């Protein structure tokens, strides 16, 4: 039983470490596009944030 005095705190530390990795993974965008990760190599442009500001300056869409 004595080993528990060490193992329980260790397990807590381990979980906190996993949580830290999770934080890094999510915040750095690892989970942003899960649906089309396979198509990433095909996209030419880098995943730049789309501009939202200048709808006026965009050329009129044409089919």
């Amino acid at each position, binding site marked *: 039983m004595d080993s528990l005095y060490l193992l329980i705190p260790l397990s*807590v530390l381990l979980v906190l470490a996993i*949580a830290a990795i999770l934080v890094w993974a999510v915040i750095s965008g690892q989970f942003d596009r899960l649906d089309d990760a396979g198509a990433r190599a095909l996209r030419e442009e880098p995943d730049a944030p789309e501009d939202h500001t200048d709808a006026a300056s965009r050329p009129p869409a044409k089919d």
Partner: protein
Amino acid sequence: MRSFCCYGCAFIAEQLFLAQAGARDREALNAAITPSADAATLLAPTAPTAQARVEVRGMVCAACGLLIEHQLRRLPGVVQAHVDFTAQRAFIAYDDKLVSRDEVLREIRRAGYETGAAERDARRAARVDLLRVLIAWLMMMQVMMLAVPLYLAAPGDVAPDIEQLMRIASLILTLPVVLFSAQPLYRAAWSQVRIGSIGMDVPVVLGIGAAFVASGIATMTARGHVYFDSVTMFVALVLGTRWLLARGLAAAREHIENARRHSTLGAQRLVAFPSSLATESISAEKLRVGDRVLVPPGETVPADGVVVHGRSSCSQAWLTGESTPIEKSSGAPVLAGSVNLDQPMVVEVTRRGEATSLAALQRLVDEAGRDRPRVVEFANRVAVYFLWAVLAITALTVIGWWIVDPAQALPNAIAVLVATCPCALSLAAPAAFSAAQSALAQSRVLLARTAALETLAQVNVLACDKTGTLTTGDPSLLKQLLLREGDPEQMLAIAASMETMSTHPYARALLHAAQTLAMPLPTLTDGRVEASAGIEATVGRQRYRLGKIDFALPEKLASQRGGVAAIVTNEGLAASSYIVLADDAGAIAVFAFGERLRDDAPALVDAAAARGVEVVLLSGDRREPVQTVAKALGIERALAHQTPDSKRSWVAGQQSAGHQVAMLGDGLNDAPVIAQADVSIALAGGSMLAQARADFIVLNSRLSDVEYTLAAAHRARRIVRQNLAWAFVYNVVIIPMAAFGFVSPAVAAAGMAASSLAVVANALRAKNVRTGGARPR
């Protein structure tokens, strides 16, 4: 004073109240919204020099959008403000010399909403939301690991100091959940308290708070029971469910928004018309009155106008529901949104932008949308009573035990708070809806508003459009009549061969019908197309004419016209349109066209009837085709010659008679009705998605998917009811037991956990939707 679901509704109610009643309401509202004439002249040079598209968060219903528009239009320099509730976006056109983008954004925030100034913020917010869910689940699993041994151990098995160590470990692991993951719950609860409209979040936060504080005290004093496992599991389940729901909604919105962004109506303006046919491509918004535009076959007319050159036929099905193409020649007016069918035309613009019939339809939609403030969700209304009941019982418990045994007062009060399960209540609806939503997404049905699922299950009238909804929009060959001895297949082959020269819908229908023929199409020579009349060509050595009766039977054969027309009438084909194939000797065959019912239409009508939903046909088309379709499907009520506005008032009439009406259409020409109806479904695949506005959008344009949607809504409702019933029974049993001190802490925690799990497990069944017929894969 009643409470409102959001600032927007409160605002609308206030405006309506101020304006008293009746027709003055809208005038008053408009007067309040549009700047007065003086202001307009003062600001005369105001022309929009900049536009902004802003993501707005925190809108609860369409009324919020109106509130924001109202606020924005009061700002000097803002020329146009339009808020799209479905897309959660605001479109603002403003003069950047008078007002800055930041001021505009600040105005939206002042109205009580959040703006996502840039996509980066939204992306960051999405990441944080995901993180909250993941952290909650990770910690839940770990806390469970520590909790389960204690549940399983016999008394005395675990040394007291080990147990204390496990409690402290659980506390540490629960802290991130309570401090970080649950933040959105606190925020929601606080804003509900602040505006005095209690929702589900308040009891939820109260439950979390009570359990956590009680467990914290128990850990500090090393006495009593800890509920960390319940807290983490509850937060994980609530957040997980809400995250799934939100992600589904966001995906649907993005889909619609992308389609809209890529489908600005274009126009081909003729630069110097009579002398040259050179065109430039511009956006339809930039057209001016007097401009001449070229409309090639298959394209949409970009603005209301008059045909100045060319002769063609146009389909106005999207606007009026009329299925038969209408002839347009020089001088004929054409409406924006109608589709040119066979020959290029030159159209002179007479009205543009705001004034066009398409825009007028759009305005009708907006008005109808505003007339429909949503009631607060059922669960939220229950939450208020639930909250007060729990608080009252807790207070009674404290008072009662204070008299009997003061030492038991606090533990029992906490037991009441913890054992009471707001989880079942708060998870009941969202979990089932999110499961149903994901089932719908798999069959490519977009859900734009979660509450729509709930409403759809209550609907008892399903109003359907005809053209393009119950029928395939394009005409198809219904019947071929031979007027002379001959091989029908050969005649069809000749006609189809001639029609390869045309792009008219009838030509497509003939070619489609000819695909089933065994023989190859004969080659033809010396073909000639006369616009909007017919085709003349030589096949073999015979000269054939195919087209309208007057064209196929020219002057020298005019005596036959009456006879052919009589035969056609005798066949009962008066309602359908037909073309005639003739040679030099006279008429050979008649091809009759009409709309064909969709294959899955009868199944939908039957399935609706089986669920107690009456299908009503509302069509802009003429009486005969409407009656034909109604009879074929066994629909009792079918209304012909309907305009968008008369459809809307019919729906409003049904609603005031106490019915809940769902509208099924293509999402565009029925737009005003769609907004008026309690809930709406649009069959809109491909390019039509861009214009479609509805609560459900069926991307595959299949009626079987509509049936599926209906089934999903009913199933979700049944499951929500089961969940609510379970939550009710559980609480009725556990609360008195907890109040009287019969519930040991372990039982309270286990009960709370089991209740949440049962509700979620039951909700997941909402995914397995079964319809009457076999599901097409």
